């Protein structure tokens, strides 16, 4: 009998209807109506383009030292001068973003991946699993970050951008994990999650089809703020002598060697460009993150 009903009603449903907008698409529309967010996106895309194709703008190799031409002021050949190794400052600036952006994005995604996995599992299962996992997060959160980086670097005994990614990934996930766990605990009690259980959906389905998509906006926003937070990390670590090796160009590396009083006052061409790039990058990522948050969660705009 039922099948007859179904058969009978199919005909009525064929009329074509206007394209419907998914919540994601609506969010994206809101995002693209936010001028600051769009400006941020454009700047970020430009910066990424520069770091992907620095050869377009300079023919200098940023890792070939020139002993005969160190600490040169700006010349027509070296518009931003050269540094103590005779590296062309402009080339280092153009190539340097690779490291900072790689570290920032990779580290942010790594923390978010670990944080989501860890926090997700903890929040999803709750109970003693959650309790145990969160105690461990407490432990991890209690380590002073820079000290941990120092220890990790001593133990692993490598210095490269991937090392930074790894270290940041290992050390920075507990914060996001705690946030995401809180979100998952909250989502677990949502009616639609209970509803999914009543229709017999498996745990994995509930996690991946229901809880994860609904925490995605939160996670994306968190990622964007993490990226912003980690663009500067190379600079801070380089300042402490924990950054990437000198032969690898990075904004943080340039900045950390040009922040003494005399360089700051007499060689603005050396330290201003990397500072501007770092600030612009963080700024644009922050604007994008802000835009995303407002787009995903219109209430927060009030």
């Amino acid at each position, binding site marked *: 009998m039922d099948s007859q009903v179904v058969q009978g009603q199919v005909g009525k449903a064929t009329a074509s209807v206007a394209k419907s907008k998914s919540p994601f698409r609506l969010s994206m529309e809101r995002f693209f109506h936010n001028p600051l967010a769009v400006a941020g996106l454009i700047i970020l895309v430009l910066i990424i383009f520069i770091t992907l194709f620095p050869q377009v703008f300079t023919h200098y190799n940023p890792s070939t030292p020139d002993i005969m031409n160190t600490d040169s002021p700006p010349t027509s050949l070296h518009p931003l001068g050269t540094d103590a190794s005779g590296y062309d400052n402009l080339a280092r600036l153009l190539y340097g973003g690779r490291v900072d952006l790689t570290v920032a994005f990779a580290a942010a995604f790594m923390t978010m991946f670990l944080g989501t996995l860890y926090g997700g599992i903890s929040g999803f299962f709750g109970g003693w699993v959650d309790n145990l996992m969160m105690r*461990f997060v407490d432990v991890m959160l209690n380590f002073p970050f820079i000290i941990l980086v120092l220890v990790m670097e001593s133990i692993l005994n490598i210095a490269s951008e991937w090392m930074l990614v790894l270290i940041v990934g290992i050390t920075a996930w507990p914060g996001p994990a705690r946030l995401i766990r809180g979100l998952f605990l909250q989502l677990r009690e949502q009616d639609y999650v209970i509803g999914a259980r009543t229709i017999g959906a498996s745990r994995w389905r509930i996690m991946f089809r229901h809880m994860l998509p609904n925490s995605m906006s939160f996670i994306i926003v968190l990622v964007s703020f993490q990226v912003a937070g980690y663009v500067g990390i190379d600079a801070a670590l380089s300042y402490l002598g924990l950054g990437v090796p000198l032969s690898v160009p990075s904004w943080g590396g340039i900045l950390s060697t040009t922040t003494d009083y005399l360089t700051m006052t007499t060689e603005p061409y050396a330290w201003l460009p990397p500072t501007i790039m770092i600030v612009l990058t963080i700024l644009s990522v922050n604007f994008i993150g802000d835009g995303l948050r407002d787009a995903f969660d219109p209430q927060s705009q009030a």
Partner: protein
Amino acid sequence: MAAYIIRRLLGMIPTLFVITVIVFLLMHAMPGNAFEALVFNPKIKNAAEVYKRLVAENGLNQSLPVQYIHWINNLIHGNLGISSSLNMPVSEAIGTYLPNTLILAITAEIIILVISLPIGLYQANKVNGKLDVSTSFVAIFLYSIPGFVFALVLIFLFSFLEKWLPSSGTVTPGIATSGSLGDRLTHLILPALSLALPSMAYYTRLTRSNTLSVIVADFVRTARAKGLRRPRVMFRHVLRNAIIPIVTQFGFDIGGLFGGAVLIEQIFTWPGMGELSFNATINRDYPLILGTTLLFAVMVLIGNLIADILLAISDPRVRYD
């Protein structure tokens, strides 16, 4: 409530235990020890023998569990050991450096509160007004500048260009008013500002959004409907409800402020815990590493505890159990 606090304090013990074990293992995984360098110091006679003797005297040739048990045993008796790099008791080193960090961190928090709270409240009241948008922009801009660059710019502006404030230290040595309150305050301003500024943007936004959510909440509407004047509503209802999440967040941030101080302390030659623990790690000063990490952990845990208590007080739905 008392039972809750006692339980939380007791609950800290296993966490601290795990932390010390991890730190202990990590630091022994680092190659080298505190005395390795003296073998390379040509001024030291019989360096190889001295090295062996020092290693033996400091128990570094024993197995890790034995060393750890020794450390724990000493800790229970209130003895944190002797710092090998400073050649003084760890407790004394911490006693010397901790107050500086506390003063710096607390001042930074006060600055954050004093500046972020009014701005956030104002923004929430004039949402999307000119000032809201411009202060938000400035806040994000400040948040985007790496902390140490900011510190150096501050020094450049206020210590070199205009000789208003000293560039380093906690007091001016060699003057009559050295160590007076005024002297200390002038030294405190630049480092505290440098430490506070990156967080200020965050707290401003937190205040803004918290206040917004409270403003639209029913009870404020009710209060307004009752005819209460706006400032009164603002202070009686909104402020009280908006401030507590911020104060709570402070509790969670204590560890961050301590850790984040490493850079600032170096630039301003501020002899604090960040500097102490950083040097301890570089010098492989095991007793000092353990001592400072333990202190960090206790600080963070107490910060979390305070945050939780504040949260419980502010939100009766959160139960002590």
